[in-house]
C-alpha cells in the first residue's frame, strides 16, 4: 500500500515537472509585418533573441542597428533575432521603420499576452534569450549591452 502511494506521489511529481516544462513558450505564434505567421518552434536548434520594442522608444530604436549587425554576423553560428513590437502599434508605422532600418530578421506584432508569455515586466526594450532547447535562458531588461552579448549569448553559439 505504502509502495503504491509512493509511486502515485512520484508520478504526480513527474507530471507537475513535465507540465512546468511544457509551459515554456515554445507555442508562441505571431503574425509578421508581411502577414505571414511564424512560430518560435520554427527556430528550434537556434539561439533566439526575442526583442520587444516600439518605434517610439528611443533606446529600442538605438538598439536595432546592433541587433541587425548581430543577426548578420552570427547567423551562421546559430543566432536568430526576432523582433516583437509591444505595446501594439500601427502596422504601417512598423513597416516603415523596419524598411528604413533595414531590419534583417522577422518582426511580429505583439500584444500584452505575447509579452506575458515571458515576463510581467513592462521595461522596454526587453530581450528574451531562448536556448537551442527552446527554454528561456535569460531576460535582459533595457538595451542589450555589448558585454552582455559577449558574456551571456556568444558562449551559447556554435
Amino acid at each position, binding site marked *: 500500500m505504502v509502495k503504491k502511494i509512493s509511486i502515485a506521489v512520484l508520478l504526480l511529481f513527474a507530471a507537475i515537472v513535465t507540465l512546468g516544462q511544457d509551459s515554456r513558450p515554445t507555442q508562441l505564434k505571431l503574425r509578421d509585418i508581411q502577414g505571414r505567421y511564424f512560430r518560435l518552434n520554427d527556430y528550434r536548434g537556434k539561439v533566439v533573441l526575442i526583442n520587444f520594442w516600439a518605434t517610439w522608444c*528611443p533606446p*529600442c530604436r*538605438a538598439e536595432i542597428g546592433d541587433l541587425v549587425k548581430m543577426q548578420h554576423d552570427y547567423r551562421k553560428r546559430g543566432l536568430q533575432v526576432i523582433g516583437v513590437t509591444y505595446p501594439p502599434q500601427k502596422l504601417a508605422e512598423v513597416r516603415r521603420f523596419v524598411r528604413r532600418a533595414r531590419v534583417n530578421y522577422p518582426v511580429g506584432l505583439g500584444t500584452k499576452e505575447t509579452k506575458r508569455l515571458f515576463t510581467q515586466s513592462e521595461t522596454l526594450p526587453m530581450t528574451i534569450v531562448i536556448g537551442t532547447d527552446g527554454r528561456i535562458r535569460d531576460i535582459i531588461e533595457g538595451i542589450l549591452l555589448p558585454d552582455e552579448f559577449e558574456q551571456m549569448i556568444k558562449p551559447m553559439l556554435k
Partner: protein
Amino acid sequence: MKRKSLVLGTAVFLMIAFTSIGASAITRKSTIRVDGMTCKMCTGSVEKALKATPGVEKVEVNLERKEAVVEYDDEKVTEAKLREVINATGFKAVEEKPKSE
C-alpha cells in the same frame, strides 16, 4: 633627535596631504540633462548603460527632471564619455554648462 622628529612629522604631514588631494580629485558628481526622457518604460536603459561604464560609481536617473546624476572616478571616465554613453541609448545628453561638484 629633535631633527629626526621634525623630518618624520613633515613626512607624515606630506603623506596625509597627498592622500587628501588624491581622494578629492577622484570622485566627481555631474548632473546631465537628458532630452527625450518621457517614456517611463524605457529610461532604465540610461541607468543601465551608465552603471556599466567603467569608473561610474553611482547613478540616479530622474524622469521628472529629465536628468542623470552620476558619481564617477574622473581618472577613469570623463563627463564627455558619460554624454556619449547616454547618446548611445537613443536619448540626447544636452550640451550645457555642466553642474559639477
